[in-house]
């Protein structure tokens, strides 16, 4: 099986006219897109435009109130939930909490392990692999709270990876990362894509979206555009999504003033 030219890989996520709502408030609607296995989708839009809503909708934390959504060819349910991994926006964790990085990553296995069981060899192997992928192997025994913010972020990513997800949802994964951590994360995403993992991520950083993503969904409460990076990231589309903000586009990146990621 060799999918160098990717169009042959199966569809991982498909939405047709989908809407997600909080109660009666529609947070995001008219979403129509398809993402193939091993592809990465960037969700781009102003704050409060529905990026995180989209991730929560895929996760099953919000109902689909219109249209349809299929994950790996199935309607969302317990089985699809098991194939998803989620990295929430950088969590504030208690820095004094007495757990090691290794133990935090092991938490990603609990769903598979079941209630009373202790970690088996397969669980320890998955944790070691997740630590290796995120470049954190040497820090395994360190107390989680003593790691830098970027290392904690990668540790939480390792926790999501330990469950061997087929699709990974990352909410603002690059926020507040320094250069080495940012590069490590980009590299990890590349490796995962190579293994056939589908990645959905929200970001304000268009340069990074260009680095690791194959497709873009531009939103502002509704779908503005979806497609390849070149097709979607036009000045016109970005102005439509970020109406009210000054948008500048140069050859390499798009600058969105006032959106440096808070």
């Amino acid at each position, binding site marked *: 099986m060799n999918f160098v030219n990717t169009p042959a890989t199966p569809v991982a996520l498909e939405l047709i006219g989908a809407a997600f709502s909080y109660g009666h408030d529609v947070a995001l609607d008219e979403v129509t897109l398809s993402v193939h296995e091993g592809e990465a989708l960037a969700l781009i839009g102003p704050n409060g435009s529905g990026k995180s809503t989209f991730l929560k909708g895929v996760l099953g934390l919000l109902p689909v109130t219109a249209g349809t959504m299929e994950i790996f060819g199935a309607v969302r349910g317990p089985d699809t939930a098991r194939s998803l991994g989620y990295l929430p926006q950088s969590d504030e964790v208690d820095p004094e909490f007495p757990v090691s990085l290794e133990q935090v990553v092991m*938490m990603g296995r609990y769903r598979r392990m079941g209630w009373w069981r202790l970690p088996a060899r397969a669980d320890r192997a998955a944790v070691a692999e997740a630590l290796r992928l995120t470049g954190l192997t040497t820090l395994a025994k360190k107390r989680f709270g003593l790691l830098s913010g970027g290392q904690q972020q990668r540790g939480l990513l390792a926790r999501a990876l330990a469950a061997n997800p087929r699709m990974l949802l990352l909410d603002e994964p690059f926020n507040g990362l320094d250069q080495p951590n940012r590069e490590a994360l980009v590299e990890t995403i590349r490796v995962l894509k190579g293994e056939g993992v589908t990645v959905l991520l929200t970001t304000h950083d268009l340069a990074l979206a260009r680095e690791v993503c194959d497709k873009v969904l531009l939103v502002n409460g509704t779908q503005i555009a979806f497609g390849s990076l070149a097709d979607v990231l036009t000045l016109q589309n970005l102005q439509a999504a970020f109406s009210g903000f000054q948008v500048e586009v140069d050859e390499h990146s798009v600058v969105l003033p006032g959106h440096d990621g808070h």
Partner: protein
Amino acid sequence: MSYLDRAMIVLTLVGALSGLVGTFVVLRRRVLFAQALTHATFPGAVLAAVAGVNIQIGAAIASLVLVGGLALLGRVRGQGTQAASGVMLTAGFAFGVLLQALNPNIPIHVDSFLFGSVLASSWNDALFAGIALAVTVVVLLIAGKQLIFAVFDPRGYRAAGFNERGMDVVLLLLTTLTVVAALPAVGAILAISLIAAPPAAARLLTSKATTMLFVAPALGVTAGLLGLTISRLWAVSAGASVALVAAGIFLVALGINRVRSGARS
């Protein structure tokens, strides 16, 4: 067996139970909430005495009313409910005092309720503490690792597909059970000393939550038995001795922690 043997059994069971459950109370930063719980038991106990039913049952019901009330007000979270817990703490206690003043003939002594009377504890008290300990051990064997996960990172726990609120309820019920079991031994006010001090000391001495679950009960039992011995030797209140030994254990742990981190740097 003498009343002293019985007291030692009760304190051993309550010390171990408080160490286990207290570990989660301390990690969850909910000590003040637990304190409020101990005081809220007071009006329940008085009402139970007025109605002529088991005092521990009254105390447990009052605790559950408090837990339910706070849960209805919103999520019971560390900082957010500090003020609410503080208000409940004093209000519950004041309500109990008032009820007691209105019913001067009930067979409940404020002193023994607040400060405990471990030497007068019955086989029923020992049985209650034993059952509470057994229930807690079973719950921790089944869901201990999930409880640590939920306390460490509630949002991550939910994102991993678990029910975080369910874990919160389990923890609140275990805390209530512990407070009510500790009542006869050390009393409502001093119960918090066994719930907070041994786990806080264990936390200073160990770097893993799982290790705390062994060290904290051991320290809790030590505080109980050493406190009882001291109270016998010097003929002072057992509850107060236990609370002071628990505080002493915390101070020693703090000293060891300081010496260690001093040696490291």
